[in-house]
C-alpha cells in the first residue's frame, strides 16, 4: 500500500478509536500495548475526543505507522522522550482524522524504547516530511540517530556546540555540572 497524501475529509469515512485499536491488535497482537483515554469537558462533562497511547518495539514501529496510514494521513506533532537508564524512550505524537469533522480526531501517542547500545531509529522523513525538525532535534538532544534523514545539521544548539554533549541525556553523555550555568 502506498502512503496516503491526502487526509480523510469525509465525516462518514472517519473511524472510531475502537475500530483503529482493534485493527492494530489484529495486525500486531501482543507486540503492541494500547490504552485509550477519554477527554471530557464542558458543563455536562461530555466526551470531546479520544487519545490512544500505544507502546511498540522498535522493529515494529514503521509497520505501525503504515497501519495508521491505512486509516488517514497521520498528522505529525512532535517527538518527545526521556533518558530512562538503559534505553532512551521516544514518544511520537500523531493525529488521525484531523479534518474529518467535529470530535472525530484521535490523538495517537506511540512510545518506542531505543536501546542505548544501538541508538538508531528508522526515519519517517520519506513518509511524512514534517518530521524533519523533530528528528534533527532528537538527534542533537538525545544522540538518537535517524536512518534515512537527509539533513542532520544542528537545529537548536549553537554552531560552535561540542556535539559530544547531548543536553537532555542523564548519563555521562549529558551536560556536566560545569556546562550548566546559574544566571543569578
Amino acid at each position, binding site marked *: 500500500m502506498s502512503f496516503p497524501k491526502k487526509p480523510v475529509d469525509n465525516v462518514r469515512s472517519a473511524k472510531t478509536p475502537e475500530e483503529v485499536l482493534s485493527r492494530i491488535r489484529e495486525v500486531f497482537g501482543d507486540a503492541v500495548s494500547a490504552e485509550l483515554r477519554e477527554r471530557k469537558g464542558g458543563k455536562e462533562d461530555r466526551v470531546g*475526543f479520544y487519545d490512544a497511547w500505544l507502546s511498540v518495539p522498535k522493529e515494529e514501529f514503521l509497520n505501525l505507522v503504515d497501519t495508521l496510514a491505512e486509516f488517514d494521513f497521520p498528522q505529525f506533532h*512532535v517527538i518527545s522522550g526521556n533518558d530512562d537508564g538503559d534505553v532512551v524512550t521516544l514518544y511520537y505524537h500523531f493525529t488521525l482524522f484531523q479534518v474529518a469533522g467535529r470530535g472525530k480526531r484521535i490523538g495517537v501517542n506511540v512510545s518506542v524504547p531505543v536501546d542505548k547500545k544501538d541508538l538508531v531509529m528508522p526515519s519517517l522523513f520519506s513518509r*511524512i516530511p514534517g518530521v524533519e525538525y523533530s528528528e534533527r532535534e532528537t538527534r542533537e538532544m538525545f544522540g538518537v540517530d535517524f536512518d534515512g534523514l537527509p539533513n542532520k545539521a544542528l537545529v537548536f544548539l549553537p554552531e560552535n556546540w561540542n556535539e559530544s554533549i547531548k543536553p537532555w541525556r542523564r548519563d555521562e553523555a549529558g551536560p556536566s555540572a560545569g556546562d550548566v550555568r546559574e544566571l543569578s
Partner: protein
Amino acid sequence: MEKKYKVPIGPVHVGLKEPITAWLDLEGEKIVGATVRPGAIHRGIEFMARDRNPIQVIYLSERICGICSFAHVVCFLRAVEDAASIPVPPRAQYIRALVLELERLHSHMLWAGVACYTIGFDSAFHLGMVLRERVMDVLEVLSGNRVNYGVATVGGVRWDVTAELSKTVKDMVKYYKREFSPFYDVVTADPIAKARLRDVGVLTYEEAIAHSAVGPTVRASGVRADLRESSPYEAYVDFGVKAVVPQDYYGKAYGDVFDRFLVRVHEVYQSLDIIEKVMEGLPEGDIMWEKNLNKVLAYLKKAEGTGMSSIEAPRGDDTHVVHLDGGDENVTWWKVRAPTYSNAVSWPLMFKDNELADAPLIINSIDPCISCMERMLVTDASSGDQKVVTRTELLEKCREKTRRLMQNDRN
C-alpha cells in the same frame, strides 16, 4: 545567465522559541531555494524544568512566548492534569476559554497590523494597533498584567469573572463588532494591498498536509484543521466551533498571504462570537479544584504518569507532553512544541519562486512576529563580492514594490 546570490537573513529575529536564520538562494530577484536554521533563542526551557515543581513551571511556561503565553500555560496544565488525573471545574474551563479567545484577538490584530506595516501600509498598522489596545485593557482588568497574565493554575484558574469584568468584556465585544470592519475593509478593498498579498508565498493543500503545517497557515491552504472543532477540549465541547477556511467565504482557497490575512480576520469575528457564548453560558461554581497550594503540591508529588495535551493557540496547534514520577515533586520531563516549530518546516516551500522583496512578508505570514531581520549579507557568488543589506533597506525594498504598484495603478 542571471547572477546567483545567497542571502542570509537573521538571526536577530523576534520569534518565540524559534527565531530563524534563513539562507535564500537568489537568481536576480527571484528566490529559487531556501534553507532555514532556527535556534538563536533556544534557552533549554525543557531542561530547566527538571529542577522545578509543576507550580513553578507554570511561570516558566508562561515565558516560552510572550504573545501566546496563556495558550502555553493552559496546554502545560492540561498535560499535568492528564498525567495526575485532576478534574477542572466547568467555571474554570469557561474562564480559560475566555482568556484564550481574548489572547487570540490581540495576537491576530497584532499580526494584521504588522502585515500592513511590512508592505508599507502604515496607516493600517496604526489602526490595527489602536484596535488592539482595547483587548489589552480588558486583559489588564482581568489579571492586572498586559502580557503574562498568571491566570491559570493546576486544576483551575486564580481569578474569577466579576460582574464588573463581564460588563467590560461585553462592551469590548460591542466595540469590536462596530470598529473592526472598517479596518478589514480598508485592507481588503485596497487594490495595492491585494496585489502585494495575493499569490505571494503560496502553500498548497497537499504541501500543507505533508509538512504538518498548523493553525491559520494550514487553514489558509483550505484544510479544515482546527483543534477546537476536531478535538473540542474543555469548554469548547459546548461551543460548536467551526474551522475558518477561505473557500467558505470566497469560493476558493489560494493558500497565499492574502488568504492567511482573511483567515485571521474572520477568526477575530469567530473569537468574538465565542466570547459572547462564554459570557452567556458561564456556569456557577468553584474556579479551583483545590485552593490549598500545599495540598496540590503534595498530590502532584504522589502522582505518576505521562500526560499530553494539544490546544489551538493563536498560531496553531500547541502540544505539551509532561511526565511526573511518583515521589519526585519536580517535573521529570517536559516537551513543548510551539506552533511555529511546525510551520517553519514549510517556509522553504513558501519562499520558492517569490521575489526577495516579498521575503519579509512571507516570514511574517506565519506570524512569527515583528522585527524579523537584523541585517542581511548579500554574497555575489560569481565574484565573491559582499554587500550588506540592512533590514531597513530590505523593508524599504518591500515598500518600494508597493509604490511601484501604486504608480502602475495610476497610469
